[in-house]
């Protein structure tokens, strides 16, 4: 859907952020993108709850 480069994937890691995709890259994939972000949010919430219960 979109190429989110990691620093080690590009010749100049300092410029990775400027390669972020524009909106058109999400064409027909908006729901899948939001769904993935929500799942990652759940992972973070779970981790924080685990840490709080320690």
């Amino acid at each position: 859907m979109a190429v989110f480069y990691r620093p080690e994937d590009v010749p100049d890691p300092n410029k990775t952020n400027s390669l972020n995709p524009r909106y058109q890259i999400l064409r027909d994939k908006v729901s899948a993108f939001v769904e993935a972000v929500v799942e990652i949010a759940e992972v973070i919430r779970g981790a924080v709850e685990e840490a709080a219960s320690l």
Partner: protein
Amino acid sequence: MSLGSPLLVQDDQRGGLAGTSLSHVSMNSACIEKYQECFLQEIIDQWPNIIPVRDFYPSIRSLCSLGREVPVPLSDDREGSIDNLLLADDGHLVIIETKLWRNPEAVRKVVAQTLQYGMAVSQLTLEEFERRLRRSNPHGHPLQSDETVSQRARELPGADDEFEDRFDIFRRRGEILLLIVADGIHQSAERLVGWINEVVGTSPVKFGLVEFGLYDLPDVGRVIIPRTLLRIREASRHVIAIDLRSTVKEQVQVTVSGDQELPKTPEMDPPANPLTEGELLERIHSRNHEDIAKLADTLFSEFRKSGLTERGLPASIQYGVAVAGDFIPLATMDSDRVWFQIPLRAKRDLERNDSSPASNGLTAWPYFIGQRMCRIPTKPTP
């Protein structure tokens, strides 16, 4: 040969050392036509890291130019122009006034002018500030019509996902570094700047003098050696305690204490003029084709329904997780781009607990999107 001159050391043919003392080139006399103030401006604009900025802000790791001759409003409807405006990776702005002391401008006028520029920049809205950056000298690095300061900052090594917040806070509070970069020492300027730093010791503004020494490099050209003449003196010794016991803290608890001072905990202000969803969508509609604008409408609508927390910044909107009084941004949208992020500190904190299934899931986050629904990242073609 003058005392304290730089020395060029080379290996000689017999395995020993050969030293050549470099001779100082005056920008005031023989080369008067060649070395104008625009010469200093051009050097700083092209190679901003020549400025010894860590003498003032040790946390800065890199600088980039925001332009030359940047117009700023002064009192009485007048307009001045900042010779060089630089941006640091930690969010600080550096305003530079270049000066060849052969020019008969009064020292007091130069210092007052620089202070006025600092005040003017801190009072502009972000949009007005960016509009003025676009009007700076086209021979420098003006902001492009579709470029924002945050986008320019992404080119800086060391700029992280907190940049936009810090940039906004520093600029509004006037935490700006003001520098006079000159071809030599002017004692009255040194005395005046020193005096200002003493009497406005509690002011967020930092003021300094930098000398560019120009020396002949035999058979090669010339070398510029920057030297800080005046830096902020440390008023007292402070102890900083950072509480990292709790995990996933975007804003750690920092307690600062010093001699005869009660401990105090500074609080970060929320971003000024946060963008609303409506305002951002308006910008997206005005800058993109209709089908892209509709796509953005759908994206925001989906995020609204997602249960994630929204946070407005001056030039973008973020969706993320609100935990324990903190906010962890995950997706950020500005008028042109959308990007995904997890703050490194959150990732590191979670990775420390290796046995946690949640942290194991997060460790794999770089591949998460790729495995689920994207193609695997590939190297861009040069």
